C-alpha cells in the first residue's frame, strides 16, 4: 500500500515549510506531525519526507535516529513517560515506574498486553518542583504517590483517559 497521510497532516506540513528560510529546517516539525498521526516513523514515512523536502533520505534518517522522541516502532495507545532524572529520582520515581509497570502488566519500553500503554523512563521533564512527575501523552501529572499511580493506571486501563 502506498504511504498516505491525512489531509490535516498534509495541511500542517504545507504550513510549516514556508516558515523557514531553508526547507530542511522544517524537517523536525514534519516528523512531529507524522508521528502524531501514525504513532511512529516508518521507513516509508522517512522516504516520503525526504522527497517532500528534496533532501537525501539519509538526512531524514540521521535526525530520526538521533532524537530520543522519534520512534521507528509503534507504541501503545498512550505513551507514558516517567521522569527518572535527579529531582524525580530523589522523590521516588523508580518506585513509581515499577508500580506503573506492575499495574499495567508491562515492562519499560514495551507495549502492554492490552495495547493501551507503553511506559518509558524519560530524562528530566522540567517540572522538578513538583517531583515525581509522569507525562501521559501531552499531559503532565505531578507530585505523584503510589496511590496516584494505581488510580492513573486504572484510568488508562478503563479508558477514562482519551
Amino acid at each position, binding site marked *: 500500500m502506498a504511504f498516505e497521510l491525512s489531509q490535516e497532516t498534509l495541511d500542517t506540513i504545507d504550513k510549516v515549510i514556508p516558515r523557514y528560510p531553508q526547507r530542511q529546517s522544517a*524537517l523536525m516539525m514534519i516528523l512531529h506531525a507524522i508521528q502524531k498521526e501514525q504513532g511512529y516513523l516508518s521507513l516509508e514515512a522517512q522516504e516520503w519526507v525526504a522527497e517532500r523536502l528534496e533532501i537525501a533520505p539519509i538526512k531524514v534518517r540521521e535526525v530520526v535516529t538521533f532524537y530520543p522522541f522519534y520512534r521507528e516502532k509503534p507504541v501503545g495507545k498512550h505513551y507514558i513517560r516517567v521522569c527518572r532524572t*535527579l529531582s524525580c*529520582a*530523589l522523590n521516588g520515581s523508580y518506585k513509581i515506574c515499577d508500580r506503573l509497570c506492575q499495574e499495567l502488566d508491562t515492562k519499560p519500553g514495551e507495549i502492554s498486553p492490552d495495547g493501551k500503554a507503553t511506559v518509558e523512563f524519560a*530524562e*528530566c521533564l*522540567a517540572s*522538578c*518542583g513538583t517531583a515525581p512527575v509522569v507525562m501521559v501523552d501531552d499531559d503532565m501529572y505531578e507530585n505523584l504517590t503510589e496511590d496516584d499511580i494505581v488510580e492513573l493506571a486504572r484510568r488508562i486501563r478503563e479508558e477514562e483517559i482519551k
Partner: protein
Amino acid sequence: MSLETHIARKNLAIHPKERRIILKHADRPDYDASIDCYLRNGGYDQQKKAFSMKPEEICQEVLDAGVRGRGGAGFPAGMKWKFLDRKSGKPIYLICNADESEPGTFKDRQIIHKDPHQLIEGMMISAFAIQAAQAFIYIREEMPYGAKILEEAIEEARAKNLLGDNILGSGYSCDLVVHRGAAAYICGEETGLIESLEGKRAYPRIKPPYFPAALGLYMCPTIVNNVETLCNVKHIIEMGGHAYAEIGKPGNTGTRIWSLSGHVRKPGYYELENGVHTYGDLINEFGGGLRDGRQLQAVIPGGSSAKVWRAGERFKGKLRSGEEFDWAIEDVPLDFDGPMAAGSMSGSGAVVVIDDSVDIVEVLANINAFYAHESCGQCTPCREGSLWMKKITTRMANGGAREEDTALLASIGDQIAGRTICAHGEACAWPTQSFVAKFQDKFLDKAKQDPEQLSKRDFRMV
C-alpha cells in the same frame, strides 16, 4: 485523590520577600495568557516605546543594565549582542532558547505557560534592537502545551501587528516561529540548537570559528538568548538600563528565578533580587527547610552539571572587590558570582537539595546516567567517558564497588573536561570530579558494603 493534569499550576502563595519582576503577574488568580489580559496590564507598551528608539540605543540600554544570561553561562547579554557581525550583509537571526533541560530547572516553563506575551514582547524588542530578519523560539518537545500557548499568542500578536510585516507601521518586519525539539538535552547548547533548527542532528559546532554572533543559523549572524533573559529586555526598556542595574549587586544585576527542588518541604520557583539572599535563605526560609528528622547532605547549586557542595564545608577566598570571605553553604550569596567564588556555579539557577536519606554514590550514578544518555556522541572523551562513568557508578550503587573505582572515576573525569567541542564535556565531568573529591570517604566505603544487601535495596535511583 489529587490526580489531575496540570500545565504549570499557579503558585498562589507568593513569599513576601520575593521580588517579582518577570513573574509579576504570572501567578495572579485573575491573570491569563491571552493578549487582552496582557494589554490590560500595560502589555506591549515597552515595544511601542522601543520602536520609537534607535536600535543601537536599545542595545546600549541592555549593555548598561549589565543583564547576564539566565540560561547557564551567565554571559552579559549586551556584550553578546555587541559581538554581532553587522558588516557581513547577511540576514541576522534571533533565537530564544526555550529548551530548558538542565536537570532541576523549571523556571522558563512558568513564563511560557503563564505569561507568553511577555516573552514575545521581549523578543520583538530584542529583534528590533539587533535588526533581526526573523526570530525563532526553540522549545523542548516535552512542553507541548507551552508550544501551543506560544503559537496562539504569536497569532494574537500578529493580528495586532505587533510582529510580522511592517510592525506598528515602523517599516521593520520580523516574523516569529515556534520550533519544537525532540527530547535531546544537547539542543540547549546554542550551536547544537542551531544545527537542530537547520533540520540536522544537534551536533555542537566548534568555537572558534562558529561563534553564533558571526556564523550562526545558516552561517548568518545569530543571537541565542534564554527565555528569562529576553523577558528582562522588556523591563530594561521600561526602567532604563542604569535603573535596572540598581537592582541586585554590581555584576549581578536584576532578579533571578531560582528553581528549588529535591529534599525540601516547599520546592518551587522563587524570583529574588540578586545578591540579597543566600543559599541558606532559599533552602530554609523560602523552601521551608528539610523534612523532619533529616540532615543536609549536599547541595547542587546550579543545575545537575554544577559542582556539588558537601554539607558542612567552608569556602574561603577573596572576592573580586578584594573583600575576604569565609562562607558555609548557607552563607553563599544567591547570585552569579557567589557560587562561582565557592567553586561551583549558579548555572541555570536550579538548586537541588539532597538530605541524608539517600546514598551519595547513587545520586552520582543517577546524574551520570543522564549525561551518558545525553552525550551527542561527537567527541570521543565525552561519548566514551560519560558512559564509562555511568557504568562504574551504577555498578557501585548495585553492590559491585571496587576499591580502585574512586581513583578511576576521578581520572576519567579529568580526561574529559577541556577536551571536547562543547561544554557537555565539562557538564558530564564536573559532577563526577566534585562528588568523588568531596565524598571520597563514602565512595571508598562503598567497596566495603554488603553487595547482597545493596542489590536488594528498596530505594533506588539507578
